[in-house]
């Protein structure tokens, strides 16, 4: 019962949030509704028994990407979107999105059908330990060590570089200011 309610709520948040984000005129509202959709997706991950993925979804997409998008939105000249019509190029974008979504949906449905067929053969569909942090840690430091390591180094370099760049620009100013 409670599982059904939580699934319905998460799915509704994800779908309705995404639809509204694509259709409202106000840019900031669209960004916030995107956040609602992302939150719903995190709920779906929880429902699928992947708490780690759900937490990472919230940390990365709501705590990071959404805040970045909100910042970018505030630099827009026309946040409320008053008196703006959708440019024609948008139709091509819509077509492309629809095609991609259809492809992904087809792949998903086919994967589901295959998984069902496999289960009929007595095979478990998902390995039992796949969602645990231990299993994810083993995967990240085992099979996927090289990409994980490279991404970590890249992010650390980016972190240090950001500080370094700001420092180089700021130092003369600060010294002039306080001289």
């Amino acid at each position: 019962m409670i599982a059904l309610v939580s699934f319905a709520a998460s799915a509704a948040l994800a779908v309705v949030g995404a639809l509204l984000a694509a259709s409202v005129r106000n840019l900031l509202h669209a960004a916030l509704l995107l956040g609602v959709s992302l939150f719903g997706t995190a709920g779906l991950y929880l429902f699928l028994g992947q708490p780690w993925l759900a937490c990472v979804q919230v940390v990365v997409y709501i705590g990071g990407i959404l805040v970045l998008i909100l910042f970018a939105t505030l630099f827009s000249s026309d946040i409320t979107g008053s008196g703006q019509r959708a440019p024609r190029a948008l139709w091509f974008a819509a077509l492309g999105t629809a095609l991609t979504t259809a492809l992904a949906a087809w792949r998903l449905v086919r994967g589901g059908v295959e998984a069902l067929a496999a289960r009929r053969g007595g095979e478990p569909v998902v390995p039992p330990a796949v969602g645990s942090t231990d299993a994810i840690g083993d995967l990240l430091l085992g099979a996927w060590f090289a990409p994980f390591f490279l991404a970590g180094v890249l992010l650390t370099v980016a972190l240090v570089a950001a500080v370094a760049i700001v420092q180089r620009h700021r130092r003369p100013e600060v010294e002039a200011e306080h001289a």
Partner: protein
Amino acid sequence: MTGLGHAVDTLAAWLAGGPPGWFAVTLAVLAVWVAPLLLLVFPVAAFGQILERKIAAAIQRRKGPNSAGLDGPLRLVFRAVLCLLPRERQDRAFAAFCNLVPVRTALLWSRRLGLGQFVADGIKMLGKEDIVPRGADGAVFRFAPYLALVGAFLPWCVLPFAQHLVMLETEVSALFVLATSGLVVVALKMAGWGSGNKWSLLGGMRAVAQLVSYEVPIGLAVGGVVLWCGTMDLHAIVGQQYAPGVFTLLGWNVCQGPFLLLLLLVFFVAGLAECQRSPFDMAEAESELVSGFNTEYSGLRWGMFALAEYTEMLLIGALVATLFLGGYQSPIGEQWLLLLPTWLETLLHALILGAKTLVVFLLMMWIRWTLPRFRVDQVMRLAWLVLVPLALLSLLGIAVTLLVAGGTTEGMAYGRLAARPRPDLSWLPWLLLWIVPVLAAVVLVRAANARYGGRHPALRRLTGEGA
């Protein structure tokens, strides 16, 4: 995350006496999830306000609240309980009750300490008009305080209060705390923009820039503890800090070498900034920005932001205790506490965690009423040039320590928590670990002082003094 769902299901089935309907499920969710949180945090946060005023007064050599006692609230309670009796009999019963010696003394002290002040403040706040400015973005403006409260309250779900008092046991609870407290960032952004006021917008931007920056050292500090303990489960982290013997506190993470002590400092300072407390309150700097992102808020919506702030302060205190100070464990003789009956053990553990939280809470207030506010650029510099490098250094130090310690020993099983492997530190390397970095730091500081005469230029840059 099955613990909570299981509790809800069980309770709902018990309430309904069979397969539960939506009513039973709603009741169960309220009972398991919402009510304990509110019961726990609301009174503490409300009381935190009066505590803050008394401490501010003590530091500034004033008296603080000193007349409002608990008589009025008590009379209201009497009237509510005896509502069927006529008014004179209610008053007579109340007078008789107040004449009892212990009650009279307690009421006298409540008046002297001004303990009833928060009730009066609360009623005043509830009575205020809820104003939405004309230029405001209505929905965003109205929803922001709720989101701030959600972000402040959700992390409490996974905190272990006692061995048998964890609302939601999950192996990713440390990550859960980071994730849910991040929602406050979005809330402040919404409040800043939705108010339709330039002070609010500037305050909101400052707040978000500050929160995003300080989430980096907080995340790194939590990451260091996770690296040391080898688990993201807060309850397992608490269990791993258990050491048998009289001085249980030797097993606490803060005693495991200088790097974890450094991480504790980084976590505390960054946590202070996450709560937007002075000296990091430049987002609501009243001398520059009226009141920052909550300029336009009034009444209960303003109260929600204030409550979220106090809740977050308590949360930082509880997290400091959980990650570094042994959680709910007693500093001395924890093993004998485990022999007590379960209810007594749970009560004592919860009280111990509360005491540790209160110490951090009081420290935050002391700092607020002692230090002046940082400037914007100083806040950013402290995060990126001091806290992040320190946190990275400690992470590196912890990793090296784990390598040097060579392998792991089976840790102690603690209560119902299974034994987890813990880094093998026999006493000699443990001592070296403390002495070598401290000596190195002393030598470095002395060398720097000798070279630069007095204060190091980095320190001077940090405080913004002229070179």
